């Protein structure tokens, strides 16, 4: 195999997104349960709708650029998921897709830039900061890990490991936070002790990416 370990090409990203769709679909009930504690219990169902679209349209792409794969995920979240979560996840993927631009393969530095830009737009649109018990807690932690990996010039597959671990840690940290943004802020005391569903979704996506990036074509 001559494909560089230091880059992820379009076919790699197709595999990564399909793995994320698989993993999210396996976690639908868990995501709905987490959301029911704070919101209306439909996060899992809505993620599944986004993933059904993403799976179908990603599989249909023929030799795509990495950015084109993420644009499909953006459309899935925007238009099939809907709601605040769909708008924010869609904004993340659209920003990351634009950040990848027309690059044919993605390095750790490009990954770090995409994570930074995507996290920034989610914070701005959602008017939320780290600590607000939202998906930003997982994203900002993941983006910081991506930046460190880029600074240390780690290969992109190792960088994804660090990103996934950081996202999971960020998601777990939401358990003890008090919600101040999103619908969860109306749940008062009920939200304490429950991990945020959106942050959990972020962790599941990045963990699937990390794992799928190790698979050989």
């Amino acid at each position, binding site marked *: 195999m001559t494909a560089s370990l230091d880059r992820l090409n379009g076919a790699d990203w197709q595999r990564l997104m399909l793995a994320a769709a698989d993993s999210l679909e396996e976690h639908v009930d868990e995501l709905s349960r987490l959301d029911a504690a704070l919101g209306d219990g439909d996060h899992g169902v809505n993620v599944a709708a986004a993933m059904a679209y993403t799976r179908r349209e990603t599989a249909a792409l023929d030799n795509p650029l990495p950015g084109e794969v993420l644009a499909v995920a953006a459309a899935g979240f925007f238009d099939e998921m809907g*709601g605040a979560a769909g708008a924010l996840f869609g904004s993340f993927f659209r920003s990351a897709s634009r950040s990848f631009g027309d690059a044919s393969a993605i390095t750790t530095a490009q990954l770090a830039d995409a994570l930074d830009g995507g996290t920034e737009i989610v914070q701005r649109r959602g008017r939320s900061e780290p600590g607000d018990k939202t998906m930003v807690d997982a994203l900002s932690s993941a983006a910081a890990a991506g930046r460190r990996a880029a600074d240390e010039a780690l290969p992109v597959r190792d960088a994804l490991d660090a990103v996934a671990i950081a996202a999971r840690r960020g998601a777990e940290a939401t358990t003890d936070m008090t919600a101040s943004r999103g619908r969860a802020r109306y749940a008062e005391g009920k939200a304490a002790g429950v991990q945020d569903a959106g942050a959990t979704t972020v962790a599941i996506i990045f963990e699937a990416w990390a794992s799928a990036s190790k698979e050989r074509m």
Partner: protein
Amino acid sequence: MRTTKMINDPTAIVPEMLEGFAAAYSETIRYEDGLIVRATPKTAGNVGLVIGNGSGHEPAMIGWVGPGLFDVNVPGPIFTAPGPSKLVSGMKVADRGAGVLLCVSNHSGDVLNAELALEDLEEEDGIDVDVVILYDDVASAPKGHEDERRGSAGLFFVWKIVGAFAETGATLQECKAMAERVRDNTRTLSATLGNCAHPVSGEAIGEIAEGQMAVGVGVHGESGGGTIKVPSADVAVDLLMSSLLDDLPFHAGDEVCVLVNNGGSMTLMELSILYRRIAQLLEGRGVGVHRAWLGPYATTQDSAAFAIALCRVDTQLKDLYDAPAIGGSVQFGSPFGVGETA
């Protein structure tokens, strides 16, 4: 809490509902490309009115498309705002050459997707669009922070009045100002005796213990003003009305339209008993009632919930409220002059 539903494929609930509803009221509406649109488009040169909303709150808003009401409703997934590209296609359909007002009930998903849709439309050209953010639920933020409040059942009055206004050749700017004026004169408070199940996941929406009444619960089960032992109807009305009347505040000599919204499984018997007390309190305060409307306007499936909404009206707002309108679920005005006083 009823967990079984008369449905087919859970993932097809929304399209099957839209298909059936539009077929039943085909003289008024059509179901096209995921949108509910008027069967007969509004006269060209008038402002188009569009609203997106999560499904599961019927008759809101599929029942409110028609002459004198909305031009297009963009239904989202269950309890979930529709995404930006669906809003964009809805606004394009609604444009009759005078611009489109996107009406947004203040919930984070609706606001975010409206912002995205407007940005996407700005990248294209041709349609003049504006957005108005609407809120009325006094339980969701304190007085002085009105713009942080949620949209709730009182937006009924905004749709009815702006719907009529948009048939008169009013400009986009005038329609937006009218929506804001009705909003700023409307207050709503709700109470919930029992929750419902999410139609797809089966998860309970909000938790209300047997024998308890939660005050100020949002349309997605969001908590608001605390929980008490279920009181009598009169005591419940006294509690809600004191918050409502003091919030605007409504004064002697004011005139209002009243909505008692059925949030799902309340009966007309209960709504009538509630209204009896509302009318007594308004009379006691010297507030006149122009019109009252009892029934399901915005529901959360079969939640045992109701909301009281008051809208302060003047001569212009009264005329617009009384103007004829017809949607799949509602009809206002009558050739027989019902409601006319001698």
